[in-house]
Structure formats: structure tokens, C-alpha cells
């Protein structure tokens, strides 16, 4: 018994010790591994000893996990989730005013400084020109409601993705229930947002409703038939933010990372490398990438706080629209 316990204890100590030494700041992130690696490199530049360890997953999954772990938080910082989703989780956030926050437009700062915008998603139409088969590329949301796009447009189930929720919510607010029904008639609905841009890139569908940064990766990667269309009747914005986890075990390091993520250097780098449109007002997007400046786009304004309150209602309306589309 004794020998066994001793060996077990020794083994546990050795094994956990090895893991603990390298532990510096634990990031819970829904971002892709490249963006995470780039953020980690940016932190290393400022704090050479820092190591970012990431746990990745969907935004909702990770936020639920943070809530479940609140008595004994495993993570220190969360990056990044949509504003609509974040507003519902303020209980697990540690408010913080970063010295970098001055450069951020106040509309991208959460209530009581509990969270802050790191980047803004712009909703786009991702077009695969090879799959257009003679049709002219759509220019507006209204174009997609025409019957010739039946079965050629792919979007994510709004119940499964925060950005898809904004897209469908925007369509409802801009075009009403009838517009929603006309989109539902043409759309193929998939279960994850990744599936939309992957399947458009793969040529399964001609058009996908997705976010700018994901679609632009394929343009920047050199896939020539992929084009981005910013709907001329007004696109929707989805700011994304981060927060410090309340009770974080490595709070000082987490704050360092928070400042680094908001800094001009990092936001420019994440724009250049990962096409994240910055929330800072002092960065000119069109000078660094071939993406247009936000000011040049027509935006249909949405209130995401209200949108979150109307979540159930929207999902119900969308499912109704889909059911109606199936019958016709």
C-alpha cells in the first residue's frame, strides 16, 4: 500500500510539476490556432518569459465552462466572443480599464468595463465564381431572395453560432418576416459556421453568408475564384470582445496579455496576419489589407443587447420560416 501510494504520489508530482513549470497564462479562446499563436508571439515580445496556453472551443461552450468552473477557475482570460453573447455572462468577468482602452471607440466597450472589443466582424457574402454558372454575383441581401438562388446559398443555423444569429437577426430587422421567409426558401442551413466558408471554398455552394475575416483568408491564401461582396443595402457588424476571468489565478499576467491584445502593434498584426478588423480608431484598414475601411461601407445598425433579449423569438421565427419554406 505504502509503496504504491508513494510511487503514485511521486509520479503525480513529477508529471504535474512538469506541466506547472511551463504554465503562465491560460487563454480560453474560440479563435483559430494561428491567431492564438500570433497573439502569444505578441505577448512574448513584451514579456519574453510568458507562455500562453490555450484551451479552444466554441464561444458558448467555453463561456459555459468558465461559468461551471467559477469556484475554481481554470482559465485566466477569454478571447473572443460576440458582444451579444458576452453581455449575458457579466457575472464571471473581472472589470478592468486598460491603459490601451483610450484608443477604443466607446461603442466597443462593454458595460462597467467588464469586457472590451478586440475586433469587429463584418457580415459578407462569400462568392465562389466558379460555381456561379452564368449567374451574376449577388450585390445585395435582396438579390439573394430571388428564386434563382434556390439551393445555392449556404448559412449557419442561428441557434448554433453567434455570428449567424446576427446575420439572421439583421435580415429580420431590415426585411421583416417576409424577407426572412424568402431567404429561408433559398438557403441551405448547416450546423457550424466553419462549414459555410469551407464548403463555399470547396465549391459545394456558390454563395455563403459568413464573416469577413474567415472569407478573406481564402482570398489572401490565393484561391482566385473566391470574392467578397459587402451587401450594398447595408451590412451588419458583430463586434467581438475579451474579458478577464473573475478569480483568475494568474491575474497580473492576464492583465498584461489583455493590454498586449489591445495594443496598436497587436491589432495591426492581427489585421495583417489574421484579417481581424481592429476596434482601435487609429488603424487604417485599407492601407494594410485590400479590405475596405469601415467608413466606406453601408452599415445597417443593430442593437445587440436587444438582440440577445429577443433570442428565443428570433430562433422561433427562423424555424417557422424554414418550415414554411419546406412546404412550398
Amino acid at each position: 500500500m505504502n509503496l504504491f501510494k508513494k510511487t503514485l504520489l511521486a509520479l503525480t508530482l513529477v508529471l504535474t510539476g512538469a506541466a506547472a513549470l511551463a504554465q503562465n497564462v491560460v487563454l480560453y479562446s474560440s479563435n483559430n490556432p494561428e491567431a492564438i499563436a500570433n497573439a502569444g508571439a505578441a505577448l512574448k515580445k513584451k514579456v519574453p518569459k510568458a507562455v500562453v496556453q490555450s484551451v479552444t472551443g466554441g464561444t458558448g461552450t467555453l463561456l459555459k465552462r468558465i461559468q461551471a468552473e467559477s469556484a475554481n477557475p481554470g482559465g485566466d482570460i477569454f478571447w473572443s466572443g460576440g458582444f451579444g453573447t458576452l453581455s449575458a455572462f457579466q457575472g464571471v468577468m473581472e472589470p478592468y480599464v486598460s491603459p490601451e482602452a483610450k484608443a477604443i471607440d466607446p461603442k466597443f466597450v462593454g458595460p462597467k468595463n467588464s469586457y472590451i472589443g478586440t475586433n469587429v466582424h463584418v457580415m459578407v457574402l462569400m462568392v465562389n465564381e466558379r460555381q456561379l454558372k452564368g449567374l451574376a454575383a449577388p450585390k445585395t441581401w435582396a438579390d439573394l431572395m430571388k428564386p434563382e438562388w434556390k439551393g445555392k446559398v449556404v448559412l449557419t443555423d442561428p441557434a448554433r453560432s453567434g455570428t449567424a444569429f446576427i446575420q439572421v437577426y439583421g435580415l429580420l430587422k431590415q426585411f421583416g418576416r417576409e424577407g426572412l421567409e424568402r431567404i429561408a426558401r433559398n438557403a441551405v442551413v448547416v450546423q457550424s459556421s466553419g462549414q459555410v466558408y469551407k464548403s463555399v471554398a470547396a465549391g459545394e455552394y456558390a454563395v455563403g453568408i459568413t464573416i469577413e475575416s474567415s472569407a478573406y483568408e481564402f482570398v489572401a491564401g490565393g484561391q482566385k475564384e473566391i470574392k467578397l461582396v459587402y451587401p450594398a443595402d447595408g451590412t451588419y457588424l458583430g463586434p467581438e470582445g475579451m474579458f478577464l476571468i473573475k478569480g483568475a489565478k494568474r491575474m497580473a499576467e492576464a492583465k498584461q496579455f489583455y493590454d498586449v491584445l489591445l495594443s496598436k502593434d497587436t491589432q495591426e498584426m492581427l489585421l495583417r496576419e489574421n484579417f481581424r478588423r481592429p476596434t482601435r480608431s487609429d488603424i487604417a484598414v485599407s492601407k494594410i489589407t485590400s479590405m475596405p475601411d469601415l467608413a466606406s461601407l453601408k452599415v445597417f445598425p443593430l442593437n445587440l443587447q436587444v438582440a440577445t433579449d429577443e433570442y428565443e423569438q428570433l430562433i422561433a421565427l427562423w424555424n417557422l420560416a424554414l418550415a414554411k419554406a419546406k412546404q412550398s
Partner: protein
Amino acid sequence: MRALARWLAWPWGLLTLLCLLVLAVFVVLPIGVLTLNSLKGADGGYSLAGFAKVLATPEYLQAIINTVLLASAVTTCTVALGVPLAYVVARHDFPLKRWLAVLPVATIVIPEVIVGQSWLMVLGNNGLVSNFLRDLGLPVPSFYGWTGLIFSMTLVYYTYIYLGVLAALRGFDGQLEEASLSLGATPAATRWRVLLPTLAPAVLVNALVVFTLVVGNFALSSMLGGQVPLLSVQTYSLFVSEVGGDPVLQSSLSVISIILVATALLVQKWAVERRQVHMTPGRAPAAQALRSWQGGVFTVGVTALVALSLMPLVAVFVGAFTEARGPVMHWGKASLRSMERALSLEPEPIFNSLFFAATATVVGTALAVLVSYLIVKKKSRLSPLLDAAVVVPLTISGTVLGIALVQSFNTGPLVLTGTAFIMVLVYVVRRLPFGVRNASSMLYNIPTSIEEASISLGVTPLRTFVQVVLPVMKGAIFSAAILMWATSISELSASVVVYSAGLETMPIAIFRQVDTGRLGLASAYGAALVTLILVPVLVLPKLLRINLFSLK
């Protein structure tokens, strides 16, 4: 009391007890916790509500049905492929046979996550071949779903049937066939009525192994499954999305998976016990040389099959050295960027894999040798218990094992989640039954008399074990260790459930990169992983003069 003291005498009684304790804590207890969790009702009492909910949810019910259908389909295909292949190899000589006969074995050590990724790169929606065909204007059916699942799994698992049937054919008494022929039966009828029935047990046993492997398969199921819901994938996503939440549903799905696998294993045991065929050894008919054109046909056929099943090895290296910009692969353009990134910028998964797999190899092999020695050579009243406990991990798929361990060791007196210990633990537990089986078969061949001689000369039992038994077992121990290494380092399904920050391994990194569409970096980790598996598997047996896969 004295009897008990003698019975527990150092070393064997105590060691048996210790091994039992280890297995009880790390294997039996987690399954117990899982089962209890599946039976928890809303009011804290026990109920079948979890199972009722599973069966009432169309998605889960469909997943269970699909899993059984898939396992049956893949099993059928592997039998259809493996049996003729074994027959051709055992009974005929054709050009290049010496090489072609061994190569399918390599499929056993190719990580499934790499197989999945490779077929995705070649035949997936944006795959090399799919795009080529699409450019030619040909319609390309989707590879995701049933097509991809059955295709890729058949190519991974046919080896089990092949090796099993090959062994049976080599032990087959050729005089039985001669007797049948001389009594006037046609060669076809002889094959059908004499050869086939005697091979049936070997086919059935290995077919059921394939069945259980498909039920537990996670890597290929989740990467190529597309819109087809499957049990292992549904259980995993339920676990991922319900961390910290109500574990009843995930436990119920897990228990259903255990029941499926355990049923298959019981059928297997029944089949083995009921239909044993005793053969006079050493009378297998010699292989016939074939006429030139027939030999050519066999060579081409077998080569095609072997090439298809080894394609992932090629694809992963090509992918690793192909230029990748974000999610876009530029086939035909070479680049070292992905390799550089995996090896020097983000090498943590490589170090983690090396550390966990090395520890698991040492601990797992030692435990397997000790346990099999206790079962085979030091029989006591506890031996049957130990014997039974060791095979329990066979009934649990990786995903289920991961969930059971997390549920048992997330809170309470022994917290293991978040530590490297739990990673090593899943590796050891998953491989233990195979390690014990290998070591036992070796031990049965070592006469007890040499030990008795040593002990009667005054050497202590423990020293006898170390100085007499272990040296004789050296070959078996090394081959068990090499196989333990190869299979641990490619483990995905359980480790992806239990891992946390800083514990990412190569298979997990590959899985994550593929999920976000980064095939270049995934290939780079894949190339590193395959190298770390193949080098020891190819080099060590030569150096140590051992036979890793007793093919002959």
C-alpha cells in the same frame, strides 16, 4: 490469520493485490461512476430517464442505428477484402509477394487521425483528386458520409482479418483438402465445404474485433462522417458542450456504447469456445507458383490494395512540404513553412507526445509484464479476478474511457484532470489488455521448471523473476514496448476528451488544425508523428533481432 499472512506473502500475493487495486481505481471505478451517473434521476434518486431521453431524441437514436449499420458494413467489407487476400498470399507465389505480404501490417501503426486527414486532402470537397476531376467537368460525389466512412475504415481495418485468416491458413491441415478431392469433390466445393468451415472461427473472431473497433472509432468518424450522426461523435460533442453540466445524458450514451462493444465481445468469446478446430500442425499445403499472367494479375491487385492503404503516409509528407497560405493549399509548390512552424515555432505538441508516450511505454510495459506473470505463473485465488479486470478496457471505447475518467477524477479525493498523469493513464489503460495478451502468450512457452531450479538453488523469487524470467522474455517485452509506443503516441479519442491547457499532443493538434481547415500545419505534425512511429517500428526490431508481428 496465518493462512492469510502466508497467502499475502511478499512478493506475489501482495503484488497481485496491488495490481488489482490499481485496476480497481483506474478502470473499474470510472466505469462504475459512469454507470451510476447514467442512472441518476432528476430528483437525486435512480431512474432510467437518461436512457429514455436518448431513445426519444431522434438524433441519438439515429446515431446508435447508424453506428451498428456502419460497423456491420465495414466488417463485411473487411472480410470480403481480407479473406481473399490472405488466401492468395498463403496459397500462391507471385512476383514481389515477399514484400507485398508484409506491407498491410503497416496500416496498424498509421494513426487514424492521419488516415482521415489524408483522404480529406485527396478526396474531400476541396481535395486534390476531387478538384482535378471537377476541373475536367466530371461530377464529383461527396466523400463525406457513408462513402468516406466505409471506404477509409475498410482500408484501415482489413489488416485484422488478413492477419487472422493468414495465421489460420498457415495452420490448416492440407490433407483434409486432399481427402475431399480424392473423394470426388470439385476444388470449388472443397473450398466451400472443407476450407471455409475451418476458417470460419478465425474470420468470426477477427470480424468481431473489427466491429468493436468501428463502434469505438472517433478520428475517422468525426473527420469524414459529414452529416451522418454516429455514437462516438455524438458522445464527444455532448461531452464538449456539457462540461460542468448535467452528465446523465453523456453517461447514458457512453453506457450504450459499452453495451454494444461488450455484446460483440461476448459473441466472440462464445464463438471461440464453441467452434474450436484442432489441426495437426505443420501440414499446410505449399504455395503454388502461378502462371505468368495470373501472377501478374495478383501482383497488380495486391499492389493496388496495399498502395491505397498506405496512401496516407505519402499524402501526409507531401502535405507537410506543400505551400499552405492560411486554409488554401498550393499543391505543386514546395515550402518548408509548415514544417518550420510545427518543429520550431509550436513544438509543444511534439514534446508532450514524446513525454507522455515514453512514460506510458515504460509504465504500461512493466505493468503488462507483471500482470501477465502473476496471471500465468503465480496463480492464486485472486488471479481470475485480475484476469477479468485486465480485459475490461476492451469494452470501453476511447471516448467513453475519457469521459469516465473525467467524471471520476475531476473532483473528490483524487483530482487528476489537468495533469499529465491523466494523459499517461489513458494511454496505459487503453493498451494494457493487448500488452498482457502478448506477454502472456510468451510466458506460456517458458517452462516453470527453470524458475523452480533457480529457486531451489536458493535464489529469492523476486531475483529469480528479474534474473531468469525477464531475460527469457526480453524479445516479447521489447516488441510489446514498441507496439505500446506506436499505439500510445497516436492515441486521439480518449486523450482529446481528457486533455487541457498545455497538454496538447500531436494527434490532438492535427485534429484541431484539420477542424479549422489548416491542412498544411496538420500535415506537418502528421509527418513528425509518422516519423516517430515508423523509425522505432522499422529500426528497433532489426537492431534487437525481434519479430514484431509474428507473421510466419
